[in-house]
C-alpha cells in the first residue's frame, strides 16, 4: 500500500492532481466569488457576535477580547487550510461507494486513501486562511504580546496537527459510508461542531467536558489547542501526539472497512 510506492512517484501524482484541481476550479468562478463573500461574512459575523457579547459583558469566563480574537483567527486558518486542500477530496469516498466509482479507484496502481486525500483544491480556502493569519496577527498586536520563535514553531506545528485531526476525523466519518450508505448527517454534525471552534475553552464547566470536546468531538482542536501554544507552549505541545494517533486509527478503520467492502455500484 502507501509505504511500498516511491516517494518521488507519489509526489508527482499529488502535484499532477493539484494541477488538475486548479484547472477544474476555473470552471466555477461565480460560485468561487460567492463563496469568498460567504467566507468574509462568516468571519465578520463571528467577530460581531463576540464583540457584541464583549460590549455588554466585558469578558467571557475571564478571557479578554484579544484572546478570543486570536481563537477566531486560528479557527479560520485551520478551516481555510482544510477547505483548500482536503474537503472536496475526502467527500469522494462516500459518493464513490454509493455510485460504485470506488471499484474503479481500487484498480488504480496507487494507494486509494492517498488518491482520496489530494487532488481537488479550493482556492477560496487559502484566502480564508490568509484572513485568519491577519486576524491572529492583529489580535497579538492588540494583546501587546510578542511571541518568541519557540511559540511560533509550536503554534504552526499544532495548526498542522489540527488540520490532520480534521482530515482524520473526516475520513473516519466517510469510512462509515461502507456500512451506513448515507452519512450526510454525520458530515453536517462535524461541520456544525467546528463552527463553535472559536468558543473559548473556559466555557466548558469541567475537565471532563474539555476532554470530550478535545478527543471524542475535537472542537477544541480547531482553535483553542493551537492558540494555546502561543501563550503556553510547554503545556500545549504534548497534544501533538494526538493527530498521528487519530490518523493511524482512521487509516486502520479505512483498511478494515475496505476488506469488508462489497461493490454497491451497477
Amino acid at each position, binding site marked *: 500500500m502507501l509505504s511500498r510506492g516511491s516517494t518521488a512517484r507519489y509526489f508527482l501524482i499529488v502535484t499532477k492532481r493539484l494541477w488538475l484541481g486548479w484547472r477544474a476550479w476555473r*470552471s*466555477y468562478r*461565480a*460560485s*468561487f*466569488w*460567492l*463563496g*469568498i*463573500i*460567504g*467566507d468574509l*461574512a*462568516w468571519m465578520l*459575523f463571528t467577530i*460581531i*457576535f463576540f*464583540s*457584541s*457579547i464583549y*460590549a*455588554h*459583558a466585558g469578558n*467571557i*469566563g475571564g478571557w479578554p477580547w484579544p484572546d478570543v480574537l486570536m481563537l477566531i483567527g486560528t479557527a479560520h486558518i485551520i478551516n481555510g487550510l482544510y477547505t483548500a486542500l482536503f474537503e472536496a477530496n475526502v467527500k469522494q469516498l462516500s459518493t464513490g461507494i454509493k455510485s460504485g466509482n470506488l471499484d474503479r479507484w481500487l484498480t488504480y496502481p496507487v494507494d486509494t486513501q492517498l488518491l482520496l486525500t489530494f487532488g481537488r483544491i479550493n482556492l477560496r480556502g487559502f484566502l480564508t486562511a490568509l484572513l485568519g493569519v491577519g486576524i491572529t496577527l492583529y489580535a497579538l498586536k492588540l494583546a501587546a504580546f510578542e511571541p518568541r520563535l519557540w511559540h511560533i514553531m509550536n503554534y504552526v506545528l499544532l495548526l498542522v496537527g489540527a488540520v490532520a485531526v480534521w482530515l482524520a476525523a473526516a475520513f473516519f466519518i466517510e469510512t462509515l459510508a461502507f456500512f*451506513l*450508505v*448515507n452519512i*450526510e*448527517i*454525520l458530515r*453536517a*454534525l462535524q461541520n*456544525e*461542531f467546528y*463552527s*463553535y471552534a472559536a*468558543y*473559548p475553552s*473556559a*466555557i*466548558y*464547566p469541567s475537565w471532563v*467536558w474539555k476532554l470530550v470536546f478535545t478527543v471524542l*468531538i475535537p*472542537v477544541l482542536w480547531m482553535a483553542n489547542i493551537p492558540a494555546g501554544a502561543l501563550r503556553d507552549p510547554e503545556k500545549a505541545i504534548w497534544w501533538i501526539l494526538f493527530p498521528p494517533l487519530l490518523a493511524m486509527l482512521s487509516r486502520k478503520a479505512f483498511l478494515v472497512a475496505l476488506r469488508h467492502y462489497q461493490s454497491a455500484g451497477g
Partner: protein
Amino acid sequence: MRLLAIARSTASLSWREATAYRFNFAMSFLVIAIPFLLQVFLWRAVFSGRSEVAGYSLSQMIVYYVLALFLFDFVHPTILYDVSEDIKSGELSVHLLRPLPYPIWAFAVRLGSQAVYLAVVAVTVGGGALLLGWAGYLSAGDFSLAGLLRFVVVFLAAWLLGLLLSLAASFAVFFTEDAAGLSKLVSFVFPLLSGSLIPLDMLPGWIKNICYYLPFRWLVYEPIRVYTGQQPLAPTILALLGWVIVTAAIVWLLWRVGIVRFTAVGG
C-alpha cells in the same frame, strides 16, 4: 383540488423517505442538542458573576435560544439540493412533463421532509427544556400557555416564508453554475441577521438598521418577541404575510426567467 391532492401525496412520500434512513434520523437529535449545549455553556460563562446582560437574565437568554433553536431549521433559507441538482443535471425536463407545476412540487417535497424534522426538533427542544429546568436554568415561570399559542401561529407564518425564501435561493441556480457558494453565503448571513445567533438588540446600531429592511428578523427575532409579549401578534403576522407575497412574486419571476434559460441535453 387535484393539484392539492398531488401536492399532499408528494409531501407524504417525502415524509416516508426522510424516516427511511433511521440512523440519520436518530443522529439529527445530536445535530440539535450538542450545539445548543455549547450555547448554554457559553452564556453560562458570560453570566458568571452577573445577574443581567443587556437586559436579559440567564434564564431569559436560555428561553430565547430554546425558541431560536426550534425556529431556525424551519425558517432559515437554504438551497434545496433536489432542486439545484434537477436544474444542473437536466432532470428538471422530466418534471416539466408532469401535471404538477415544479415550484409546487418542490414546495411540497420540502414541506414533507421538514414535517418529520419538526417532530424531531419538538421532542429534542422539549426534552432539552425539561433537562434545563431540572438543572435549574429554567423555571415554570419562563413558559406561558398564551405565549406558546401566539408562538405557534407566528411560527406557521414564518415557516411559510422560510420555505419560499429557500425556493427563491434554489432557483438562483438557473443563473449560477454551482449552488455551494450561494448556499454558504446564505447560511452565514442568516444566523446573525435573523437574531438566531444573538438577540438583535445586542448588536451594534448599524447592523440593527440593516436588519430592519430585511425579512430575516421576522423569521426568528420577532416571533420570539411575540412569545415573550414584547411584540404584538397581529402586526407580526401582517408583516410576515407581506414578505410572503413579495417572496412568492420573486419565486415566480425567477422560475419564469430561469425556465427560459434552462437547457437539458442527452436522454
